């Protein structure tokens, strides 16, 4: 008899047993068997590697400046990771963002809005995430877009069905992350002063959040381990 058929019979027998129990015991002969089962969940464990330099603090930047940091992501779990999404949140904490007007633009341009929000400030920074050794980026947007979620970044470039970062001790991906304070020399109307001056002296605390997702559920019926 093939295993399939044996299996079918086993289920039938189990079902019959249940109905017999429901109807009360009337036969003296019986037999009891047991099976031992283990349902062990795997672990999904994304690790932002030690070599990662995304915990940067860079102050006193001027428009046009840029810097490159390294991001190392590894899979320390037993389950394959499907996708890794990155977004950012704005943090409070010491020296949190506040609107500054170092050049007193408000008095120089009455009637013109010289204020800005933290989102405006973050929109001045372009962030590009590129797998090491490759030329094509997997994310290209602004820090503001990473915060607002309009440009949620998926870093592994895998589809819903593909493994983005396989399980295993040697599985890791390294990215070059370039952040640039984009220069914008648009002046205020009738003046030589650039509008970007309204961001002078401001700074923003950010948290980069990386989320790893599991692979889709699979039919594991044929997985057998003794």
């Amino acid at each position, binding site marked *: 008899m093939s*295993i399939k058929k*044996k*299996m079918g*019979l*086993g*289920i039938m027998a189990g079902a019959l047993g249940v109905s017999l129990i429901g109807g009360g015991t009337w036969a003296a002969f019986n037999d009891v*068997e047991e*099976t031992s*089962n283990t*349902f062990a*969940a*795997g672990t*999904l*464990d*994304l*690790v*932002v590697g030690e070599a990662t330099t*995304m*915990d*940067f*603090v*860079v*102050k*006193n*930047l*001027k*428009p*046009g*400046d*840029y*810097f490159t940091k390294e991001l190392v992501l590894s899979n320390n779990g037993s*389950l394959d990771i499907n996708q890794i999404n990155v977004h950012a949140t704005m*943090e409070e904490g010491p*020296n949190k963002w506040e609107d500054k007007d*170092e*050049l007193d633009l408000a008095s120089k341009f009455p009637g013109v809005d010289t204020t800005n929000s933290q989102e405006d400030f*973050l929109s*001045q*920074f372009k962030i590009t995430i590129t797998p090491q050794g490759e030329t094509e980026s997997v994310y290209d947007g602004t820090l503001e877009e990473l915060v607002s979620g309009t440009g949620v970044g998926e870093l592994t470039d895998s589809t819903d069905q593909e493994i983005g970062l396989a399980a295993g001790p040697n599985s890791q991906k390294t990215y070059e992350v370039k952040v640039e*304070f984009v220069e914008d020399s648009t002046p205020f109307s*009738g003046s*030589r002063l650039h509008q970007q001056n309204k961001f*002078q*002296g*401001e*700074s*923003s*605390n*950010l*948290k*980069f959040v*990386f*989320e*790893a*997702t*599991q692979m*889709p*559920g699979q*039919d594991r*019926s044929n997985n057998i381990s003794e």
Partner: protein
Amino acid sequence: MSIKKRLGLGAMSAVMGLSLIGTGTWAAFNDIESVQAKVGAGELNLDLKQLGNGPIDFKISNLKPGDHMTRTIKLDNIGSLAIKDVLMSIEGVEFENYAPDTVEDAGYGDTDTWGDNTAIEYLQQFKVSVIKVGAEGGAGGFPLDIIPSTANVTLADFYLASDSVAGDQHKIDNGATNAMISAAKTLVYNSINQVYIDDNSDRLNVSTINPDKWTGLPVIPGDDDNLQIKIEFVESNDDTNSDGTHDQNIFQGDSADITFQFEARQWGGLNVKDSDMKNGVVETNKKANSQTN
């Protein structure tokens, strides 16, 4: 235990699993990791200060031909970013042509002592004798004189040659022609040390130009620049009218408000490396030449 029975229960558990899929998120496992970061913009801020107790504005009335005045302006970087250069321009001229219209006004009825003239003609009477940068002296080797006294550049030449936000139409409204503007540019830019001309904007760089750390107005090392401007109301006795009065009399009582503007500019973009940083601050941006070509 036989394989058969294990399989039986295995099939049951699969059914239970399916019911979970029906009611909730099927990708339940995820993992979140995060890192903290901070970006901060610096400050670029130029301040014009007095040197000693001297004034920085030319606010002088009751001038007569032959008078001259010198102002020394201290260019001070009060920001956190190095200033690459400071571009000087004459942005605007508000001219008032004197004409006495009541008996009480000086010169009423005596047309020898006043007359009609344009702003440009008036400014032509003033020679910008010296514009000296780095007047504070110190380690040098850089050229001090931007407009040498021998160049005979007038305020009118300077105004016409200078780029301005208002543009050339403003100059034409003040009595200039396109030919005059063109001639003034030739005169001014041929008589000025070429290194001090910003090609892109027809303006003078009035901060020091050195090949080293002193260029412009760095924050480190601290280096104020003193800019000296001398203006002379040139006496002209050569041209007289038939009755012996000097031509220059038509300028009597005239006045002009001139706006000198100084634009401080940043250095270009820097590729910031760890070696540029100290305690999270880009120290290199406080110094001259803080740009990546």
